[in-house]
């Protein structure tokens, strides 16, 4: 077939049901734009940030506590969103902070997704004692709030890591802790969907002609259970970002040398009483906008993929 007859991939995407439902929902469009802007700004932070806040040579302590859009009385510098206690440009710290928040959020969700999908596929396809054991673990874990699980895993892991490596390992420990606290949702959904799919004819046909079970799971069943996984993944991303911010706010997350949005909020909170509101407000608003936008996107995706609501 020549290209003139088949519509291009881009056009097929534009013409799909999902894209149509996206175009019809103003809330989804706004959330999508907000999320995209923050993600892109964070990804290209080194290019667009006015300064590199973690390069000591670019800092001037005299710039400390400069209010937004005002000229500093000593140095004459101005900052769009003000400067923090160490004279760092708040806008730049937010861009670099969002980078770390998003990195931890995405990594944790991908980790949880891989773990949950694997467990769910195996439990749903094999059944029997494997299923019973995996789902018992899931039940038990589900009865504890995930932030508590993440905190406990983080605390336990910190105990086992030698003190000299705690700083460098912290971010990875955090990703594993948040990921482990969140895999159950994926596992349950995938297990349920797998149990439905494995009874269908196409799976039986594949089995009859002797396709390797792993290939059946990955090539035949997995694509058909991805819809709900994407919904949980999107909402899970918002939860992971908030979980990271909460742990960093509590001072047990990322090390102070790599401040995320949560760390920035923790620093900002110390200046709330002395009137330097901008150090707290702008990181908090960024975190909130990001979490809310991703959450609303997840809600929209859930409705868009649900055939009953069409």
């Amino acid at each position, binding site marked *: 077939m020549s290209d003139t007859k088949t519509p291009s991939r881009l056009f097929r995407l534009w013409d799909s049901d999902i894209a149509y439902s996206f175009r019809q929902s103003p809330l989804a469009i706004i959330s999508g734009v907000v999320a995209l802007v923050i993600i892109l700004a964070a990804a290209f932070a080194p290019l667009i940030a006015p300064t590199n806040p973690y390069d000591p040579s670019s800092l001037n302590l005299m710039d400390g506590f400069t209010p937004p859009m005002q000229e500093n009385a000593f140095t004459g510098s101005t900052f769009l969103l003000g400067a923090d206690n160490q004279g760092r440009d708040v806008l730049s710290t937010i861009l670099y902070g969002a980078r770390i928040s998003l990195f931890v959020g995405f990594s944790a969700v991908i980790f949880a997704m891989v773990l949950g999908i694997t467990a769910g596929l195996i439990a749903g396809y094999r059944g029997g004692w494997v299923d019973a054991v995996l789902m*018992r673990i899931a039940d*038990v874990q589900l*009865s*504890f*709030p995930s*932030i*508590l699980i993440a*905190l*406990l895993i*983080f*605390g*336990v892991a*910190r*105990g*086992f890591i030698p*003190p000299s490596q705690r700083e460098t390992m912290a971010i990875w420990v955090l990703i594993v802790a948040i990921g482990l606290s969140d895999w159950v949702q994926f596992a349950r959904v995938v297990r349920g969907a797998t149990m439905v799919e494995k009874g269908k004819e196409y799976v039986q046909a594949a089995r009859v002609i002797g396709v390797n079970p792993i290939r059946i799971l990955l090539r035949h069943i997995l694509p058909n259970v991805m819809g709900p996984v994407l919904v949980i993944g999107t909402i899970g991303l918002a939860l992971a970002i*908030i979980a990271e*911010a*909460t742990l960093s*706010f*509590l*001072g*047990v997350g990322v090390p102070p040398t790599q401040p995320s949005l949560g760390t920035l*909020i923790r620093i900002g*909170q110390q200046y*709330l*009483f002395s009137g330097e*509101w901008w150090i*707290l407000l702008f990181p*908090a608003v960024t*975190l*909130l906008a990001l*979490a*809310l936008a991703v*959450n609303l996107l997840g809600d929209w995706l859930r409705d868009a993929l649900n055939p009953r609501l069409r």
Partner: protein
Amino acid sequence: MLAFIIRRIVQSALVMLVVALVAFALFRYVGDPISSMVGQETSLADREALRTTLGLNDPFIVQFGRFIGNAIQGDFGISYRLQQPVMELILQRLPATLELALVSGLAAFIFGVSAGVYTALNRRGFLSTGIMAVSLIGVSLPTFLIGILLIWLFAVELQWLPSFGRGDTVALPGGWTTGFLTSSGRQSLILPAITLGLFQMTLIMRLVRAEMLEVLRTDYIKFARARGLSNRTVHFGHALKNTLVPVITITGLQLGAIIAFAIITETVFQWPGVGALFINSVRAVDVPVMAAYLVLIALIFVIINLIVDLLYYVVDPRLRVERGAARH
């Protein structure tokens, strides 16, 4: 019924055993207990002798058994950071956390149920729309941001309420300290309780609203109306009563969540509770306190879940019939 109870209890005991194993592993294999006890001049032979006297050379199973035996008696050793018995530290701080959890849990339940009923009965009302919008914020705002927001508004700008601590407390017999009896104690409680309870309140409210709307559509409500019963009787006698089963279950399970989220609230408000103690212990890698908190919080959760499961079984007769039918 009896088989169900026994199975649930065995399951709970198994969970506690696993948690105890993690706590023990933490206790035993993080750092060398001997190094933290003796000076640098102690010879290797002396260290080995001390190791044997303390039973650290015993088989794993024996040591684990001893750990469980001590834990059951409430002995979790001495905090590395504060040099006090761990159980004493926890018991000192437990009243603060429990009072906070109790007040915010009660407030969340009362306001959540009333707001849920109101918004379900007046779906299109102006106030209902407002409550639903606020609840969306309550769900999406992280707990610590709610706390900071409240501090900024009521402590910094309006200066109505204190921003940190527990105020003056009164010691009661039995080692319990309470903040309920002094005015500064009651004032200090307000902001943390709102922070802690807001999320649970919105959750309960949305649940009650959804359940009410569901129930109001059923046939027996139509029949109750057809019988000419007053709105009041239909709404509260028939509809609300039937929504409360899932609500009580969820509220029960949320009690555990409140105790967990108290960690965050206590940090924001510098509330002298168990959660703040735990966070400081994680930061300082104070292993005995972490292990004890792990076991304690797991115990609270397991007990709450057990009670809720059993209550559910008692309250909902369908569950009994289904299980009985599935048996044969």
